């Protein structure tokens, strides 16, 4: 007999509840589900969590949870700080990021210049602080644009299906076939500029199909649930079904993928800048600095370390934030 496998029916789809328990040995997740079912009512309600007279909603409960979640607080603080220095870099860096002295090129840390100097002899600390603006702008704006456009198109395609869905699926296939760097070279040489906006436009244009595909899939999954049918049987319109029932249940994967994508967008900006079509001087960005420092890792690692560290911290903060938001929107985890 081949190794017997336990039939896995985690989600109670099974006609008999026993499925949950027979999967008990099969997967840990099902166990939680089966136990949680009988469990939760035995637990005394957490103080202030229920029994109160105020009507609760998903969003107010989510906010209630987030405010107490250390992961959210830490990542929120980091992001707030980043936004602050993007808006007012001079508040913590008094120097001029463009004032460079070739004589000090590649020099290490010294009084007044804690991060040392880069290949052109510019102060790395000042440039790292000033670079936040471009990188954060590209990361946040591109992610917002991609997430909005992608989830809107993907969500509608998943919800309505039909010809719009077929059309959108073919279009996303086409976009997936475009090589990112080549596309960037072509697009940015046609739409030149020294600001962040052409780069953001390009990333949104190229990035939305990824989110659209995920949004479409998760909307289709959510749509098949009986509670959507139940709402329809009550006479709910499309907008109510989409906003009340489908979006909250379909948004988690979009949040996860979007926050991860945020880091890759900042990295993509760096790549394009390195190739000379992204941001150009006098704009200061971590991407430009990382790419220009990458040739000197052995001699002067500090040139790479500081902007790359800032980038890593930013990406981490956003991923943590996405994680916390996703968990807060899932009542099962409370």
């Amino acid at each position: 007999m081949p190794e017997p496998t336990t039939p896995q029916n985690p989600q109670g789809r099974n006609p008999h509840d026993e499925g949950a328990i027979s999967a008990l040995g099969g997967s840990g997740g099902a166990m939680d589900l089966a136990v949680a079912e009988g469990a939760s009512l035995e637990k005394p309600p957490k103080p202030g969590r229920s029994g109160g007279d105020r009507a609760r909603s998903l969003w107010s409960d989510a906010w209630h949870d987030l405010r107490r979640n250390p992961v959210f607080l830490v990542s929120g603080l980091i992001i707030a700080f980043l936004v602050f220095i993007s808006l007012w870099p001079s508040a913590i860096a008094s120097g001029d990021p463009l004032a460079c002295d070739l004589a000090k090129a590649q020099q290490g840390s010294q009084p007044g210049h804690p991060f040392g100097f880069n290949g052109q002899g510019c102060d790395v600390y000042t440039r790292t602080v000033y670079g936040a603006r471009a990188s954060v702008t590209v990361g946040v704006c591109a992610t917002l644009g991609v997430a909005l456009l992608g989830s809107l198109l993907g969500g509608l395609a998943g919800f309505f299906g039909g010809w719009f869905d077929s059309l959108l699926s073919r279009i996303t296939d086409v976009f997936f076939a475009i090589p990112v760097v080549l596309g960037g070279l072509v697009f940015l040489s046609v739409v030149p500029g020294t600001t962040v906006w052409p780069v953001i436009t390009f990333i949104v244009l190229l990035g939305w199909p990824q989110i659209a595909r995920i949004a479409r899939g998760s909307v289709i999954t959510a749509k098949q649930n009986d509670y959507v049918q139940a709402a329809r049987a009550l006479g709910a319109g499309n907008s109510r079904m989409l906003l009340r029932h489908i979006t909250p249940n379909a948004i988690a994967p979009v949040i996860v993928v979007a926050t991860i994508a945020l880091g890759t967008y900042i990295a993509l900006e760096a790549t394009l800048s390195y190739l000379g079509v992204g941001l150009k001087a006098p704009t200061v960005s971590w991407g430009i600095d990382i790419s220009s420092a990458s040739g000197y890792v052995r001699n002067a690692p500090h040139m790479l370390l500081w902007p790359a560290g800032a980038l890593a911290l930013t990406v981490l903060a956003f991923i943590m934030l996405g994680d916390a938001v996703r968990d807060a929107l899932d009542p099962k985890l409370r």
Partner: protein
Amino acid sequence: MAEIIRTSPHARAEHEEAGATEAGAWAVPVDPATGGGETILEVRDLVKHYPLTQGIMRRKQVGAVKAVDGVSFDLGAGETLGIVGESGCGKSTVAKMLVQLEQPTAGAIRYKGEDITKLSGRALKAVRRNIQMVFQDPYTSLNPRMTVGDIIGEPYEIHPEVAPKGSRRRKVQDLLDVVGLNPEYINRYPHQFSGGQRQRIGIARGLALNPEIIVADEPVSALDVSVQAQVINLLDGLQQEFNLSYLFIAHDLSIVRHISDRVGVMYLGRIVEIGTDTEIYEHPTHPYTQALLSAVPVPDPTAREHRERIILTGDVPSPANPPSGCRFRTRCWKAQERCAQEVPLLAVPSVFRGVDTPAAHDSACHFAEEKAVVPH
């Protein structure tokens, strides 16, 4: 909800009858088949075909899954009609068409004389208030990201005329009480409840708009045995309290008998036999009903010795390509040439016509004969 609790079901029915005659909008004769109550739902030749298509861009229809193929029945006020059948017989599709989750391919569903299949917009929304559904799976039928209060209160948001804003919370708590849940659970989420409790929440949502008809699609089959009885008793009690009509769909014949006044047996998209519970269970005349009843495991070990069991051979044919004539003939031990050619009509079989016997009820078989298969 409170005001309905005080009104007796009888008074409510009377009131509605009076209102109707005054308005003269519809007049339905009292149908003996529905136990004396006036017919509030008439289903006629209901058909649902799902097209099978080929090709990516230009879809070409190559056939159809005939999920429901000509189903007719009446439902009386305060009555429970049970529909039984095996998976794929189309019983759930019928339920979905009744609550307008699926658009029928053909046929009519008349609610108080008005065909609701043609309605849309405001008129459809108004009808939906009166025909509500209880779903099978208590795990997927409640939105996990909404509180119980939001779930049961949603009907009032969609139909704000039913309850003014200030009174909704009160009504939701009343409903929780009616279905036997603690009204303080209003802020909890569905996953904090067991299967049986979730099903009660689903029932409360179905009751919120004061419907006259509740379509229940396998409402207890996902529950544990000891909890099933609780939910069945609840449904029974609610029916008496609010004079509800139930269309109760299930595969469990014992439960259907317990709750139903009349029972229809479906096979491959058609009703093969329909009658009162005594007629169907004690005097079945269709071979499929007889086989179905004899196959039910009975919780009585002494029955296994002296009980005739009809074990059918083979499986249910595909609804995309049903057999000609009588659809049951491929598994029927009585099948003859005639069964392949002639579709048997759902009517009182000729042998019983004019005879005063419980076997004289609608049965779609050319060779109908009575056979008692349920042990006593």
